[in-house]
């Protein structure tokens, strides 16, 4: 979102700069033969102008085509979504343990993987950790189990193991999602997922 915002702002400011330069040149007759009324044609915006005027006229007359109506609704929705995303406070980078104490996501991730490694069912595992506003981490753990294992029971055991391990370390967990899949330890591939 930050990169998107920067791109939009850079384009907007570049456009304003160009318009400003042309505006000054035309308004003060700095170059002979240039008239302000001809600015849209000089900038090659006359077609855009005509198109915009046509759309505005259609809106006023209530004669919008279905596609134009859908496009306007889409633009409005996009604007609303971007506004909400902009107003939403950013997700914190660190996991809050308690007031004034934090752990980096990588530290929590390492603990999650260490906990999963201790579970007898898990063969190999990967984890994603997200911080949230407030104490606790959101954790997604993917673990492989041997073929033929009861996936639900394995998931329950791994989840319990990770929860207990993190609890002992004092890392609060807001949400723990464990996904297990059958894995052949020799190939590392998986088939059945739960």
């Amino acid at each position, binding site marked *: 979102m930050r990169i998107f915002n920067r791109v939009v702002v850079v384009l907007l400011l570049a456009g304003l700069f160009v318009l400003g330069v042309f505006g000054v040149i035309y308004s003060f007759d700095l170059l002979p033969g240039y008239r302000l009324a001809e600015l849209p044609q000089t900038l090659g915006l006359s077609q855009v102008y005509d198109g915009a005027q046509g759309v505005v006229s259609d809106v006023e007359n209530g004669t919008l085509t279905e596609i134009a109506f859908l496009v306007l609704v889409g633009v409005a929705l996009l604007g609303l979504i971007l506004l909400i995303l902009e107003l939403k406070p950013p997700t914190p980078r*660190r996991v809050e*343990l*308690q007031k*004034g*104490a*934090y*752990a*980096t996501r*990588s*530290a929590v991730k*390492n*603990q999650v993987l260490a906990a999963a490694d201790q579970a007898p069912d898990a063969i190999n595992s990967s984890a994603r950790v997200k911080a949230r506003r407030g104490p606790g981490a959101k954790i997604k753990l993917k673990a492989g189990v041997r073929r033929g294992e009861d996936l639900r029971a394995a998931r329950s055991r791994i989840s319990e193991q990770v929860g207990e391990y993190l609890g*002992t*370390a*004092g*890392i609060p967990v807001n949400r723990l999602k464990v996904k297990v899949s059958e894995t052949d330890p020799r190939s590392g591939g998986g088939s059945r997922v739960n």
Partner: protein
Amino acid sequence: MEAATYGPGEKVSGVVVTPEEVQVHVVAAYPLPKPIPELAQDIRERVSPKVGSRGVTVVVEDLEMNDEPETGQAVVT
């Protein structure tokens, strides 16, 4: 990004001082003698009297396995 404070002629690693707070970045050694929040609280209690009105924030950067007999230390990164 390294957590450090640059002073005249020296760099203090693991400590970030801002007008509002002092951040202490540590690597805790495993096995832990007590839960991480309690370790963080110990650090806060030791640092708080020395930083005036600034708040103290403890950031655990990592937990490392410690093979040495003396365990449970918090090492400033």
